[in-house]
C-alpha cells in the first residue's frame, strides 16, 4: 500500500499494472501506478487538448 499524493489516504494495489490509472477512493484524484515493488503512485497526466480516440 501507499498514500495518495493529494490527500494522503491509504491506497492499495488490487492487481493493478504499471501505468494503470485509477481514482483515489478518498479524494477521487486520478492516480497512475508508478511502480509495483514497492507500490507507488503519482497524479495521472492531465487531459490535453489533442487527447481522444
Amino acid at each position, binding site marked *: 500500500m501507499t498514500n495518495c499524493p493529494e490527500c494522503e489516504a491509504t491506497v492499495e494495489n488490487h492487481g493493478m499494472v504499471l*501505468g*494503470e*490509472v485509477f481514482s483515489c477512493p478518498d479524494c477521487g484524484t486520478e492516480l497512475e501506478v508508478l511502480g509495483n515493488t514497492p507500490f507507488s503512485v503519482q497524479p*495521472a497526466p492531465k487531459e490535453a*487538448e*489533442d*487527447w*481522444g*480516440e
Partner: protein
Amino acid sequence: MSSGVRLGIFYTIVRPEEKAILAAAEARGVPVVRLDDGEVTFGLEAPPDLPDVVLNRSVSHTRSLYAVHCYAHYGVPTVNAPAVVELAGDKVLCSLRLAERHIPTPRTVVALSPEAAMAAIDRIGYPAVLKPAVGSWGRLMAKVDNPEDALQILEHKSALSSPVHSVFYVQEYVPKPDRDLRAFVVGNEVVAAMYRRSGEWRTNAARGGSTEAAPLTSELTDLALRAAEAVGGGVLAVDLMESPSGLVVHEVNPTPEFKALAGATGADIAGRIVDYALGVARR
C-alpha cells in the same frame, strides 16, 4: 501459443482497454514491449530490439502521429498505419475523405478564422455543431442554436491559445433519436456494434451515455466497412447517426476505446485487436 512476434504497445496511460490488450497478449504468449509515449525517444536510425509491430494506444493525436511515422521509418508496421492516423485523427481530413468516397456524412463546412466561422455556421444553418478538428470525447463541442450563441462561442474559442482552435469545423445538427451507433471494425470485419444513448445531444460513452448491443444490419456493416476502408483500414471505431434519410458516418476513430462496447456485446475486442496486430507484424 506464442507466435514469436514481439508486440509493442505505445500508450499514454493504462485504461481498461490497454489492460485488456495486455491480458490478451499474455494469454497468447506474446511478449509485450511497453512504450510509454512520455518516455520514448526517436533517432533517425532504427534502434536495436524494436518490436515486430506497434499497436498505437496513445490518447494524444500529436504523439500518435509522430510515433507511427517514426516506427514506419524504422520498418516496423503500426496499427494503425501512419496515413490512417493522419486521416482519421483529424476531423477535417476525415470528412474530406468520406466525401471523396461518397460515404453519407453530415454536411460540413470548415473555416480558418472566427469571421469565416460565422459565415460557415450561417451556411450550415441553425442549429449547427461546432467541433475541434482534433481530439474527442465530446470535449469543447458546442451546439449552436442561433447567431447570438455563435458569436459567444466563437469569442470563447478565439480566447483559447491552441492553434487547434483556430480551425473551425462546423457540421449540420442531425435530428436523430436519443442515440447514435458505434461499429467496431477490425480489418475487414465489423466485430461488434452498440447504441449509445444520452439525454443530451452528445452521446459519447466517455461522457456517461448508456450503451446496448446493436444488431449488425447489412446497412450498418456495409457503411462501417466502407468508412474504415476509406481512411485506409485497420482497427477503427466508426460512429454513425440515424438521420431521417438513413445512416450517416460522423466520425472514424483511429485509437478507439472499447470498454463500453465489450461490456455491451460481450465481444472479445482486445483479443481481436491483438490477433490483427500479430497478423500485420513484420516477419
